[in-house]
């Protein structure tokens, strides 16, 4: 199993690495001291299991879990020092959690459970998502990483280099997928590669070929494909 370890304490990572190293079928493909870096690497390295600390800088383990695209979601094991978090609120067999200091037997149990699962089942995050809609988006601009409020963005789009968000002046890069943004924010899909924030729409113009174009508040044009135009007309009762 390909595994990520995400914990802001080096010693905690070392300790967990030591314990996992005793298992023959475990391959640690990534080790991160924060959720933002983990998010960046997810798509590329495609781990099967995430060991997630909960208290971490910028975004917590819980927030990170809610930012992961369910389609490609790995199994998640929260590793935490103190279980005041309502982990029980999650669907029982979708996630697991282990208390620090990690006991070898408890870790083996958890791994055994994951191996037994014949086929990968995406974690059922519905409740988490309902309780914690995404409001802060981790963004990258050059070398800097920051959390930006979703409301500041007019639209999001994907291209070969990844997902980008337009804030009215410029664009930032995000490691969230369009699917995650569509599912967990108020943004709506208007094109296979575009999402738009309803509050940023100034005008929708129909084109001759059945497609349409959205004019945003900042004057940007966002394409609307024929398929999504229909849905948008229903949505806005046009």
């Amino acid at each position: 199993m390909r595994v990520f370890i995400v914990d802001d304490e080096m010693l905690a990572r070392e300790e967990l690495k030591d314990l996992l190293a005793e298992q023959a079928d475990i391959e640690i493909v990534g080790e991160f001291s924060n959720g933002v870096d983990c998010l960046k690497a997810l798509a590329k390295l495609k781990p099967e299991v995430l060991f997630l600390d909960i208290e971490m800088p910028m975004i917590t383990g819980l927030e990170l879990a809610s930012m992961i695209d369910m389609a490609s979601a790995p199994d998640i094991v929260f590793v935490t020092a103190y279980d005041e978090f309502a982990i029980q609120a999650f669907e029982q067999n979708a996630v697991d959690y282990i208390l620090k200091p990690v006991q070898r037997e408890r870790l083996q149990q958890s791994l055994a459970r994951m191996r037994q699962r014949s086929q990968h089942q995406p974690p059922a995050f519905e409740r988490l998502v309902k309780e914690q809609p995404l409001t802060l988006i981790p963004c990258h601009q050059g070398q800097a990483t920051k959390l930006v409020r979703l409301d500041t963005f007019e639209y999001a789009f994907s291209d070969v280099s990844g997902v980008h968000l337009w804030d009215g002046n410029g664009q930032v890069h995000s490691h969230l997928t369009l699917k995650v943004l569509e599912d967990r924010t108020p943004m709506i899909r208007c094109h296979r590669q575009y999402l738009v924030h309803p509050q940023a729409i100034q005008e929708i113009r129909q084109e001759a070929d059945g497609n349409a174009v959205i004019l945003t508040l900042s004057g940007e044009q966002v394409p609307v494909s024929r398929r999504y135009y229909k849905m948008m007309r229903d949505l806005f009762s046009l």
Partner: protein
Amino acid sequence: MSPVMILLVSMAQQMSMFLVIAYLLSKTPLFLPLSNISARLPNGMIIYLIFSAFCILASLFGHTVNDAIANTRAVGAVLGGLLGGPLVGMAVGLTGGLHRFTLGGFTDLACAVSTTLEGVLGGMVHLWVRKQGRYESQLFSPKRALIVTFFAELLQMTVILLIARPLDQAWALVQQIALPMLLINSIGAAMFMMMILDRRKLYNKFSSAGSDQALRLTERLVGVLGDRPDEASARRIADIIKEETQVAAVGITNETEVLAFVGLGDDHHWVGESIISEQTLQAIRENRVVFADGITTPYKCSHSNRCPLGSALVVPIRDADNTVIGTVKLYEGKRSLFQGINRSLGEGIGRIITEQMTISQHHQQKQLLAQAELKVARAQVNPHFLFNALNTINAVIKRSPETARSLVSDLSLFLRINLKRNQTVSTLAQELEHANSYLHIEQVRFADRLSIEQTASDELLNLHLPTFTVQPIVENAIKHGTSQLLGDGVVRIYTRVNMGLPQLVIEDNAGRYTPNPQPESEGLGMNIVDTRLKHHFGFDHGLKVECQPDEYTRVIIPLTGEST
């Protein structure tokens, strides 16, 4: 001497005698109702009795002139009306008149009618003065009494002329008695009224002396009062009240038994026995002042028939929740009147005691709160910190047993200080030791991401701070500061002197301080520290926070060194 002159002298003698009697009466409590205008029945009753008696005596001692009686009855009837109102006036006039009628003579009917009319006249003037909305003291004007009596006598003369027959005899009589009766009655009424007025003035003066007394009493009581009275403090309170009010006896009870009793009757009112007096039980049950004035409501001692106490005022004492927790009782003897001033004073005493107890309860609760806060601060060993520390030790054991050992000793020190330190004030050195035991652990835990810089001037190390001031601030700097950084965290702890005031500064390089933290975040720790600093050093010496977002948060702790 002319007959008119003889009559004048005789009537003056008569009036003098009455005035002497009235003067003597004015020294007794019997006179007190006269100097107070009150609609209450006993008051009117007393006025009626006194002035009816006056009328009857005046008729009896009158000077017989030509089968008629020259007399001073008018004074009684008019004053009765003036002081008691139309009903009392009429009753007095009628009584005096009927009595006069039984004495016979050719003017008997005329005198009966006129005396009744005189009483009614006095009563009408009483009504008129009150209707005018004037102060009731206007009723006590001797001048008005003189004028009213003068007209009342004119009225009487007229009635005699109208009713008494034969007319020529009546006319002869009026010629003889008119002048003396007009003069003597008017002057007599005025003098009588003056006497009542004097008594009233004396009473009021006494009341204003009472407010000085009240102030002194309050001052003395406040010194003694505190919590719920026990037997010792109750005894002191009772002594003070008795001394200041000069009542015959003072008792203090709690809800069930007598805590103190001093004064008249202390031979059978025992401390420690259960309350059995009906008035006291009523005051406790109904949570109100109960007054047995000894006149309309008699006070009867429940212990002994020979008890010399005749009146009692029972004032409930309440606690902060307005539940009765006891009573203060003021007594007077059977032979003395319970003074109105002492009644209001007694009720005031009840309020003072109640208030003092509320204050003292409030004070106690505040102290409890301060203690509770200390407990909270002490108990706030963050479980995250504890388990993360254990996890760190766990990870370090294999790699560096030496580091693990020092971590264990830091953790022990930290926990020991948290659990055991009892004094509310510590030196800066002690506070830094506590913070350092915490910091050493965190530094190993965030080894690659946290650096600590610490400088404290030696000469400041003995200054005092409330215990548990520094560590919670340092914990905040890491928890809400550096640990939220993706990059390296730096915590600086240093002393400095700013405008002559020594300070301890705890600074992180995160700059993530928000003045209004979300309820679930741990701003509570900061608030407690701030409250306790202000509590120890005064309102100006709380925490100060400077924050430059994304650059630094600086928490400044004043080191005044001297606790208030």
